[in-house]
């Protein structure tokens, strides 16, 4: 019953908010209802989308990953170093990005699962470590990915935009989203993710080996951050060392707006994706209205609280029973 309610909310209310926001800005924003803005909305949320997909799994297990943003940046920095300094071929650089991020995710998993650290603390630690590590290894230099038309520029055409200007990134994000959806709902991995989040001890006593699966979840989240890093690099080209903290909150905010509870055990990826796009529409919409960037920050905060309050209100009873 409760779950159904939740599904209804995520499946109907959040999309409605998204559509209403879009309509609102289409009326009041300058040129908002246009291909250009639509593309901006898509482009600006690839990296957040990948992070949010990954952290949805983590949040369903009842955990949190504060290292999302710095993991992404650290990995992208190292990939950039491979390209700029060691002159690896692009494809290897990209594999390195994914590898580094996955490794950090794995580290998070080991800390949380095997060493039993609270996820908040473990990932706070790796957040700082990742941020420092990337800067140390690249000697605090900005790393630049190839731009359109340069020898390795296929990278951008492949992940970001075709030469004709079509935002191919969207296919990647949606493709990956579908894979994640199947992973979450149709595989052992997904089921155990829910089981661990719902009642870790019951899962353990059912013979589920918590530690490897939980490590797997964090590793998967790291992997998603790696993908996020690739798309960040594809869209923004330059990676500045010692940045990325704060971005995790965008990813998490997307999940939260999408109706996934921080308590674990429930959550939907569809909600997450909608949450990410609500933030993106809000951001672009406010820009189209000529409001400066801090209005976005403010309203994103309002939306985060509003979304959860709404959810809370609808799930009031459910929450009481659970408590």
């Amino acid at each position, binding site marked *: 019953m409760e779950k159904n309610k939740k599904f209804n909310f995520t499946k109907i209310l959040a999309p409605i908010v998204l559509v209403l926001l879009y309509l609102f800005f289409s009326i009041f924003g*300058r*040129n*908002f209802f*246009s291909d*250009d*803005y639509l593309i*901006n909305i898509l*482009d*600006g949320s690839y*990296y957040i989308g990948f992070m949010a997909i990954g952290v949805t799994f983590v949040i369903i297990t009842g955990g949190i990953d504060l290292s999302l943003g710095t993991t992404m940046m650290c990995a992208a920095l190292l990939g950039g170093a491979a390209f700029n300094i060691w002159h690896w071929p692009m494809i290897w650089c990209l594999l390195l990005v994914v590898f580094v991020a996955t490794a950090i995710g794995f580290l998070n998993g080991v800390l949380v699962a095997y060493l039993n650290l609270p996820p908040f603390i473990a990932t706070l630690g790796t957040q700082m470590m990742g941020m420092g590590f990337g*800067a140390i290894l690249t*000697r*605090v*230099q*900005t790393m*630049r*990915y190839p*731009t*359109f*038309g340069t020898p390795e520029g296929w990278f*951008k055409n492949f992940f970001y*935009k075709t030469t004709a*200007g079509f935002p191919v990134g969207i296919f990647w994000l949606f493709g990956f989203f579908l894979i994640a959806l199947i992973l979450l709902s149709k595989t052992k991995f997904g089921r155990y993710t829910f089981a661990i989040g719902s009642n870790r001890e019951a899962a353990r006593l059912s013979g589920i080996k918590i530690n490897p699966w939980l490590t797997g979840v964090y590793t998967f989240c790291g992997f998603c951050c790696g993908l996020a890093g690739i798309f*960040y690099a594809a*869209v*923004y*080209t*330059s990676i*500045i060392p*010692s*940045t990325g903290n704060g971005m995790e909150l965008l990813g998490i905010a997307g999940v939260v707006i999408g109706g996934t509870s921080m308590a674990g055990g429930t959550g939907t990826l569809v909600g997450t994706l909608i949450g990410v796009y609500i933030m993106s529409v809000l*951001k*672009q919409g406010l*820009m*189209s209205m*000529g409001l*400066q*960037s*801090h209005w976005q920050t403010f309203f994103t905060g309002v939306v985060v609280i509003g979304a959860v309050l709404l959810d809370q209100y609808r799930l009031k009873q459910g929450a009481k029973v659970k408590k």
Partner: protein
Amino acid sequence: PAVAADTPYIAMISKGFQHKFWQTVQAGAQAAAEKYGVKITFDGPPSESDISVQVDMLNAAMANNPAALCLAALDTESVTEQLNTCKEKGIPVIGFDSGVPNAPEGSIISTASTDNEAAGALAADQMAGIEKVMAAITGATKDAPIVLSVISQDATSASITGRTTGFVNRMYEICNEKQPGLVAVTGHDKWKKASESGDVAIEILVSIAASTSVTDCQTAAQAVIQRGPVGIFCTNSGSVDGMLSATADGSDLDREKGRYKDLVVIGFDSGATLLNAVRNQWFHGAVTQDPYMIGFYAVELAVKTLNGEKVDPIVDTGCQYYTYQNMDDPAIAALLYE
């Protein structure tokens, strides 16, 4: 709703927004906008390391169908594609402040900016021109080496790297002339240079803050001060703020009773605290740009381009060195802001 077709709309994207410097640029731009009857918007990312925010702003600005764009890029590569798009769409782009260095051919019509390397070199010249600094340079030996330092808020932005490079190169030149082969540049790989002889009498220390926040700039300044340098050049408002808060707003640099009374510090730009420090001679002086004219020229160049006039590819908006002695000269005072 679209703006009336007859008022051209020019979007300006700066590198920041918080510092008075940018507000002055905006004021200049606004003045030009009124003069030429165009509409402008002015926005910039919260911090000078927020590349993605700037790119998003630029994308939004382009989606707003501007007649022209004025841009001070945090990083050239990250906006290359947008510049190309503008070129295709025929939206003229004018660079301002540090502009868009190394932009693709023909994508930038013109740039209204300070020659940052020259500004850095100016600081080096001024520093070496101070008697006690020169005495220290000539008097340094490899057994009693001295340190000259430059503090920068980041190693990313073109204007700051330009100033840093300008300063380091000129200082190296000056010192190497006095002490051939005994000068080394340390601190950051980008500028690192071992001394030719292997011995070091003069160390030019480049210190880059961990982030652009004041707290990190302050920590960087503290660390440099601990090395007991003869002179320090702070390359922008951020590092000046860091320096000031590391020295009790500069009062530790007081010529008579300050803890570091022999330390020579040169700043950049202006602002109430820096002006105060210069006026009290805590800072020896500072290099100032002309932010108002940067903004004014940027819009003027855009308007001229829109009108089909030919414009120069670079308009140097100039820079000046000021000390407590000349800061009230009308010509200089006009460039300074609280």
